[in-house]
């Protein structure tokens, strides 16, 4: 029997917009005409995750991949490829680097846009079955360093890999380990910071849920490198599944003696304890985290002394983030050189981003450092929902800022993001479209930071409150132009003089949006912005639906007569807009 052919046509959100439905119909039609229904199957698939190149057609089992297919190309694909078995060269993906057309999709540079190191096992192994982790070379890195490397050598590998902390700060991991290792005394601690607090970032949760053993293994490696025998995972209580998987993993690892005494016969002891966070963003800051682990309020302390000198129980402590740890077994197995070959000059390896907001493909992506924002938003993320206009991406969460259209082609790494007024943070990327009001967005973040402020130092405790109040005044159209000056002064002083990283970065969302979207602030300050929804008289048929849903009853009008919104009373909730079936209401 003739090898059966399958034609896969991308039907994801991104591709749907470009006629893929019509293509499927045409393909089916032509195959029927050719009486090849028994040999050829036409399938409309979900998203290929390749939206920038859509629509895409893949032909199996040849594993040939056509991109940017147009309706008029269908005939050629059928006659050339399906009937004659000849590849249509011009539709193959054009690899800009190799400058040659490639057929097999795994070889295409495009796919390398996503590269999984930290997420390598997520979705691939059963996180509750240690044997699956072992099958993918789990605990081999630990076994190797314990049998073949000295502690110093492990630190050298880490330094050579140029891995930097993925929690936000970007401090070189090897250096952190070295600083801790150098401290005198033999009571030291390794802490895994799993208190993922950035709203909209969930890569750490995903790793802990999908690949908990990799964290345990990396912590043990860290312990060996620094001379620490105890590890603590500080994890958000809001992540019950991750906690459960972590507990299971620890239990299993102990059964295999991957944790416990005399690991791999090396004489090195290491075990791990879990401590729960309890809902405090500031506990992502390492000194606050340590206070919390010690059973106190999560208030940060001044640095120096750094935890590497005086951390948990005043002993040398290294605090590393989940994603940072997740990279480590691969670095050991494949070498520092391999890792440092990925990424940009000062930012090596990959970074996981959590794509969310007004974007088609919401989810986690892991890309090499240096990938541009455009590639992430359009190629991987599939562009903006409903074909709206891209406005900005908020990165770094409450500590970060916005990246605007003009910087879409900036290669993403620690330094470049900082240079344009944002930051890597833990990797949250909230995509904003034309409908988003930047003053409202920064108000959202300030509300968050002032609510999450521990209250210890003056600038953060009172300053962020005052900033929030000014933003509230502005958005209520009760502000004045001088407010912008006060806001900016406050922002700078809070940034300069707060005690910890949370406070120092809390004004960033305001400073960044004030820089790129000052006109929006001015519109509020000068009260030239309209906060009210309006009804287009010509379109309104007087169905009364809007007036019935209006929570403040500011819409009036008789049945079958165009309605009117009392602009002074409108609270811009948008209920009328959602209710109107005649597109008769326009947003402010």
């Amino acid at each position, binding site marked *: 029997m003739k090898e059966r052919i399958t034609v896969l046509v991308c039907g994801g959100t991104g591709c749907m917009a470009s006629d893929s439905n019509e293509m499927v119909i045409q393909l089916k039609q032509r195959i029927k005409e050719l009486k090849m229904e028994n040999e050829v199957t036409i399938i409309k698939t979900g998203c290929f995750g390749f939206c920038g190149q859509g629509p895409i057609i893949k032909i199996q089992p040849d594993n040939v991949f056509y991109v940017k297919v147009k309706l008029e190309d269908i005939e050629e694909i059928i006659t050339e490829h399906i009937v004659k078995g000849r590849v249509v060269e011009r539709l193959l993906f054009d690899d800009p680097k190799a400058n040659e057309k490639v057929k097999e999709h795994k070889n295409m540079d495009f796919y390398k846009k996503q590269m999984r190191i930290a997420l390598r096992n997520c979705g691939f192994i059963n996180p509750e079955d240690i044997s699956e982790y072992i099958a993918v070379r789990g605990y081999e890195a630990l076994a190797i360093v314990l049998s073949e490397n000295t502690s110093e050598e492990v630190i050298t590998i880490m330094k050579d890999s140029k891995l930097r902390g993925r929690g936000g700060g970007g401090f070189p991991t090897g250096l952190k380990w070295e600083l801790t290792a150098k401290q005198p005394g033999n009571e030291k601690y390794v802490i895994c910071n799993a208190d993922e607090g950035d709203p909209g970032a969930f890569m750490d949760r995903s790793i802990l849920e999908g690949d908990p053993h990799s964290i345990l293994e990396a912590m043990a490696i860290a312990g060996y490198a620094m001379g620490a025998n105890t590890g603590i995972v500080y994890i958000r209580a809001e992540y019950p599944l991750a906690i459960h998987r972590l507990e299971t993993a620890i239990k299993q690892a102990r059964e295999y003696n991957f944790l416990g005494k005399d690991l791999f016969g090396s004489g090195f002891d290491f075990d791990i304890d879990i401590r729960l966070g309890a809902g*405090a963003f500031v506990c992502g800051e390492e000194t606050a985290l340590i206070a919390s682990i010690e059973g106190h*309020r999560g*208030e940060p*302390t*001044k640095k*120096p002394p750094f935890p590497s000198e005086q951390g948990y129980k005043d002993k040398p402590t290294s605090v590393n983030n989940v994603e940072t740890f997740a990279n480590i077994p691969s670095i050991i197995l494949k070498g520092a050189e391999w890792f440092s070959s990925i990424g940009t000059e000062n930012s090596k390896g990959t970074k996981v981003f959590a794509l969310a907001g007004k974007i088609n493909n919401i989810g986690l992506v892991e890309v090499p450092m240096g990938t541009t924002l455009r590639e992430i938003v359009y190629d991987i993320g599939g562009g903006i929902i409903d074909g709206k206009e891209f406005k900005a991406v908020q990165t770094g969460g409450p500590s970060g800022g916005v990246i605007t259209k003009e910087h879409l082609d900036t290669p993403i790494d620690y330094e470049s993001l900082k240079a344009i007024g944002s930051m890597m943070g833990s990797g949250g990327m909230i995509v904003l479209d034309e409908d988003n009001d930047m003053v409202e967005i920064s108000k959202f973040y300030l509300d968050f930071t*002032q*609510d*999450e*402020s*521990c*209250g*210890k*130092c*003056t*600038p953060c*405790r*009172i*300053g962020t*409150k*005052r*900033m929030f*109040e*000014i933003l509230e005044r502005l958005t209520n159209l009760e502000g004045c132009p001088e407010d912008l000056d*006060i806001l900016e*002064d*406050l922002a*700078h*002083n809070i*940034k*300069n*003089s*707060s*005690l910890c990283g949370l406070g*120092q970065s809390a004004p960033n969302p305001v400073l960044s949006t004030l820089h790129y979207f000052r006109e929006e602030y001015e519109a509020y300050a000068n009260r030239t912005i309209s906060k009210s929804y309006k009804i287009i008289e010509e379109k309104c048929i007087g169905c009364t639906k809007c007036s019935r849903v209006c929570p403040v009853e500011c819409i009036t009008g008789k049945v079958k007569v165009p309605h009117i919104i009392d602009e002074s009373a409108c609270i811009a909730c948008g209920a009328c807009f959602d209710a109107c079936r005649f597109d008769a209401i326009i947003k402010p």
Partner: protein
Amino acid sequence: MKNINIVINNNELSVPEGTTVLEASRNVGVDIPTLCHLELPDFGIVNKVASCRVCVVEIEGRGALSPSCAEKVYEGMVVKTDSLKAINARRSNLELLLSNHPFECLTCQKNLDCELQSLAEKLNIREIHAKGIKMDYPIDTSSNSIIKDPNKCVMCRRCETMCNEVQTVGVLSAIKRGFDVVVAPAFNLDMVDTSCTYCGQCVAVCPTAALTERNDTSRVWRALSREREHVVVQVAPAVRVAIGEMFGLEPGTISTGKLVTALRRLGFNAVFDTNFGADLTIMEEARELVHRIENNGTLPMLTSCCPAWVKFFEHQFPELLDVPSTCKSPQTMLGAIAKTYYAEKMDLNVKNLKVVSIMPCVAKKAESARPELSKEDELHVDFVLSTREFGHMIKEAGIDFTSLEDGKFDNILGESTGAGAIFGTTGGVIEAATRTAYELITGENLEKIEFEQLRGLEGIREATVSIGDLDLKIGIAHGLGNARKLLEDIKAGKANYHAIEIMACPGGCIGGGGQPYHHGDQNVIKKRQAAIYEIDKATPRRKSHENEMVLKLYDDYLGEPYGKKAHSLLHTCYVPAEKI
């Protein structure tokens, strides 16, 4: 110690390793304002939370500013204290604090003695740019000693450091977070419902009026104004070495005579000396100790002069209530005698006799209100004023304190010995008791009166004094944290003492919560201590049992020391209390 080379505002200097930027700056005459910072290292008091951000400076190579109070120097450090960035931040942070502060300075207890107020003047704050909502917490007036107004709190955390780390009373904590954060007892309980000892160390260090003593001056003015009332006053030993500070005199200036004159001028009918009460206390306490030693009673015996300490063990060590001496404190002993012996002698209706105490202490206010410290529903002491309140009354009356002539205490309850005087400092009570116990036990005359081994400022001290065949083992602790350590040892059976003196405040009463504010200068307390010993030296009689008026009191009225009548008037009992 190694020296470190640094540069401050272009001045090169070399300072010992471990110096903070703040200290180094002050060395070269560079002034940096501070607010939350507090350091009295010899008393174990260190508050370096770096929370107010008023002392921030620029350190080359760092993005953010650093708190100079907590930042230690390192080799090659380059500091700028006067950069625009630093100046702006300091002013901004102070403005923020003020934007959340009630503007009622004119009637505030701390008016013109407020660290926030003087900082506002110093940093030229004339306008609050970012105004907004302010804290709105109820004022806690539940106790007789301390008023807590959270709305005036600047979150310097000094009170928490005192309450938790120094005193280990553990009543105060920051509650909630962010803008809503407030320093309060658990569950925001009223102070009176907690195990607060009213030691007042929180009051002593509060830079604003978030924690103050309850102001009783108007009650005293009222009593003085009632013609039918006969108002007598007593002054504690530690007051006379500190009151001068209220009038610009050096700490440690002995103002006993001026103080007596001032009290007369204020209209008190008689001016007594709590030192008399102290001598009386020794008569009882030394007997009690000897009694316990001779009769296999509970040992060690702990002193009980300090009301904060009494409250501390009632709440924290209720199982050890038989350990402290049953003696009342000198102030209440004197009050008890005033309302009995003195009233009888003067033929006064006790109902119209009011006893006012001037104390270095805020716990004495609560002590005086304890129902068991009364006789037939008449409290031994009616009103207690802190040294500060007393100073304010003098000012209010327009009395020029520094030029006052020396007066003398009214004889009947005014004579005292050097032993009574040293009650004001840590080690003093036990030294006074030892002087008397020595002669009581041996029957010999004590030649060397000064027990140097009992003096000093170490938090916990111990000494063995040979009294005849007996090696009297003595322990001393000042500061409740140190007291706790001693008590834990006693509980564990580790401490082997005959007698232990405990004073709740660092330094003893000279460092009391009612004294003029030391504003973080530990030398103030040390100078007061030196003055106390000076008074002792200068007093002709230096043993309590040589106080003729005390002896007369026993002859005339009380009978035997530690006897039946003395017991009913001068001894008390303790009640176990919950710890919250």
